[in-house]
């Protein structure tokens, strides 16, 4: 990632450059962003970091890529043409004898059951399982890494979706006002009266909600919070003089909304995004915690919280869940804060040197 190479910086508009500068000036947000991006990047390549298959193998003079290809056990001297279990002591002995294998640093995936465990699960952290195992003998660290990715991806898609819906609906209501606004507001009020959690629970009883299912249902309701903010901003902005001037210039409504009204509404909207984002993560976690979320076996932080609650004698579960969730949410809030400040023109002015003396002399 090189967003700051000279060519790209030159192509950015000055206001974007200035926002970038303000954002970088906010050390906490800047550090949080990089930390979060690093964590997210790590979790994006979770398969390379925590997996129950070797990344690459050399066996009998030939190259194998178990990460990408499923090889039958017969390839490595096994008896059954099934998927190879690379943790099987027999296979491991075979590999050691006929070649070598490069393992990821954490040799467990999120759903790998460690069959070679000598201790009852949940097992405390040790050299083999850095954060211990959960009550089904799965590696906690691997689950955290995958769970982090899933939560962030879910929140990203949900936030983007609600942003688009909220801005479009709120914008249309606010900009046109009058009857459009009145009818739209009543409809959203009715819609927001629906109990989301009950709806999810009822739905969970006759469909097994997957990632997209859950996302779709939550998207139906998560934009409601944005509508009020965006609508209020559009209502205010449509009477501003520069919007009037744009109308007088003959610009069509969609251009006025896009170029003049939306950028102003974006500050208020952006202040909302961190809440939406963290809200999406906590909702997903809460649903998983209650057991109405992602299908069983999915790597989810909510499930880890539930395990921590059920296994109070295994504090590493609860502590890991707590630390990873609070770290993720705090980083997001700090980033959101920095973003909001960067988009606010008044903060830019504050950072410029104050000019208390009148400028009338240069007025000409």
């Amino acid at each position, binding site marked *: 990632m090189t967003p700051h190479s000279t060519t790209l910086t030159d192509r950015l508009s000055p206001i974007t450059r200035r926002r970038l500068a303000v954002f970088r000036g906010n050390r906490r947000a800047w550090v949080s962003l990089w930390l979060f991006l690093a964590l997210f990047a790590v979790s994006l390549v979770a398969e390379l970091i925590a997996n129950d298959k070797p990344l690459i193998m050399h066996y009998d003079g030939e190259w194998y890529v178990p990460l990408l290809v499923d090889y039958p056990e017969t390839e490595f001297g096994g008896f059954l043409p099934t998927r190879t279990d690379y943790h099987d002591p027999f296979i491991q002995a075979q590999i050691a004898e006929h070649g070598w294998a490069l393992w990821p640093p954490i040799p467990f995936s999120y759903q790998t059951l460690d069959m070679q465990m000598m201790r009852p699960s949940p097992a405390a952290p040790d050299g083999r399982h850095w954060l211990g195992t959960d009550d089904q003998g799965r590696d906690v660290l691997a689950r955290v890494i995958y769970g982090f990715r899933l939560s962030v991806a879910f929140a990203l898609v949900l936030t983007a979706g609600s942003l688009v819906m909220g801005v479009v609906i709120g914008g249309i209501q606010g900009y046109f006002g009058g009857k459009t606004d009145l009818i739209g507001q009543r409809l959203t009020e009715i819609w927001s009266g629906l109990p989301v959690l009950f709806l999810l629970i009822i739905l969970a009883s006759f469909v097994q909600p997957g990632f997209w299912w859950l996302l779709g249902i939550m998207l139906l309701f998560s934009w409601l919070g944005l509508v009020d903010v965006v609508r209020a901003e559009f209502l205010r902005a449509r009477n501003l*003089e*520069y919007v009037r*001037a744009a109308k007088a*210039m003959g*610009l069509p409504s969609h251009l006025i909304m896009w170029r003049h009204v939306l950028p102003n509404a974006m500050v208020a909207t952006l202040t909302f995004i961190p809440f939406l984002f963290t809200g999406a993560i906590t909702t997903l976690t809460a649903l998983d915690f209650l057991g109405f979320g992602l299908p069983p076996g999915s790597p989810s932080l909510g499930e880890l919280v539930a395990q921590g609650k059920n296994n109070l004698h295994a504090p590493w579960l609860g502590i890991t869940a707590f630390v990873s969730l609070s770290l993720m949410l705090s980083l997001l809030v700090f980033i959101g804060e920095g973003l909001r400040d960067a988009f606010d023109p008044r903060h830019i002015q504050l950072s410029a040197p104050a000019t208390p*003396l009148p400028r009338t002399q240069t*007025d*000409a």
Partner: protein
Amino acid sequence: MRDRTPPALLRLENFSVAFDRSTVVERLSLEVHRGETLALVGESGSGKSVSALGAMNLLPDNARIEGQRWLGDTDLNRLRRRDWQALRGGRVGFIFQEPMTSLNPLHTVAKQIGETLRLHQGLSGRGARERTRELLAQVKLPRPDELLGAWPHQLSGGQRQRVMIAMAIANEPELLIADEPTTALDVTVQQEILALLDELRQRYGMGMLFITHDLNLVRRHADRVCVLYGGREQEAGGVAEVFRSPRSAYTRTLIEAEPAGQPAPVASSQPLLQANDVSVSFPRPKRLFAKRPPAFEAVKPLTLTLAPGETLGIVGESGSGKTTLALALMRLTESRGEIRFGDVRLDRLSGGELRRQRHRFQVVFQDPFGSLSPRLPVSEIISEGLRYHSPSLSDAEVSWRVQATLKEVGLPADCASRYPHEFSGGQRQRIAVARAIILEPELVVLDEPTSALDRTVQKQLVELLRDLQSRRGLSYLFISHDLAVVRAMAHRVMVLKDGEVVESGDCRTVLERPTNDYTRALVSAAGLSPAA
């Protein structure tokens, strides 16, 4: 004091105010005596208000104040917090500029005035009510009994300012600080308020510190004047003396800054804009199950014409329908009646057809801070309409046009990539003019373009507009309440009152020999100096 004359009421010596590291007021010395009005004059940002607020310790904590401050024989530098509370509102009364926000909207008039009475005189209940009624009568509010229970939003701007004055004089202060008390008011109301202040000052023998930017008011209502520029005192002395022979160069430019000259005469008489029986009305809200009240007529049917290259001044006080009329003529608000622009019937067009006509008539608004999008660089603000109306232009051509237009309105070329907040009010107004003329319109509606600007900047803008008119043959519809500017700009003038034309005709004739009572009141309130 070394001499034996009665000590001044308010005395500042070497008084400085600094915020953080920057000095805002530097070594100011002034005196206000009992029964006299000292006007503190300067342009925006010159430190007038800061001086007054600083003297009364009303500035935020990061302000550093130096120098001597005396009120009578009280050393203001030695006062503690409690003493200040007793002093403000007790010995010193304040009147602020904004009558809309300086009254608490959640309290009735009686309660707001009663509060100061209770705090400083311990009056309450009937006593306070009696005294409040008395005060309301003193500030000449009609029907004081009814007004006691009125809420601020039920009062007009002038009435609110009277209530503010009643609050300020409630405890018979020795010193009255009036910070631009009439700036937000219409000219005729201005005169009434200032006359009232003069009268009260004489009756109570108060000293008055009158802060203003309007030299016309200083000339008529102050005894002495102190001119500030950039936080420094430029000149002080008796009003007549300063106006007759100003010593400092700045005072001289300030006095000469009244817009002068007149527009170039018009040759053609074929009308560019012709409006017949144009009227605008707004429906009033309807209560549930009630009959809809008759619509509010903002502009009653009126007829006007405008020739190419001509300026029609539209004059009136706030609420007279000036801006509504302009918006109606530009089809930015719903209206009835015929609007003919060149050979096009504007009132029959709508949607895309209307938008394609819009480059022919442009508008410049009053507020230089609100009329430019803060999120776009100047080049985009100016070129936006051009890109839409002539999509065939290449980027190079557009930027060339932007540069040429910036030059035409007297702005340096390098400001194209900067953002509006980096510019002063006068410069922003130039940007707004550039945005309008880049589309090569035939008509520009100027809606109070100079009202938010300092006098010296106003003069420059008026000259620019006249220059553009003679160069491009533009027609202007010039809306203003400031007769001095209208006289410098307009060929013909139309006086509006409550949405009706009360008088119209040649600009000089109307302003010099008004036939209508209302026009006469306006002209006399404006205090125009005789035309050059």
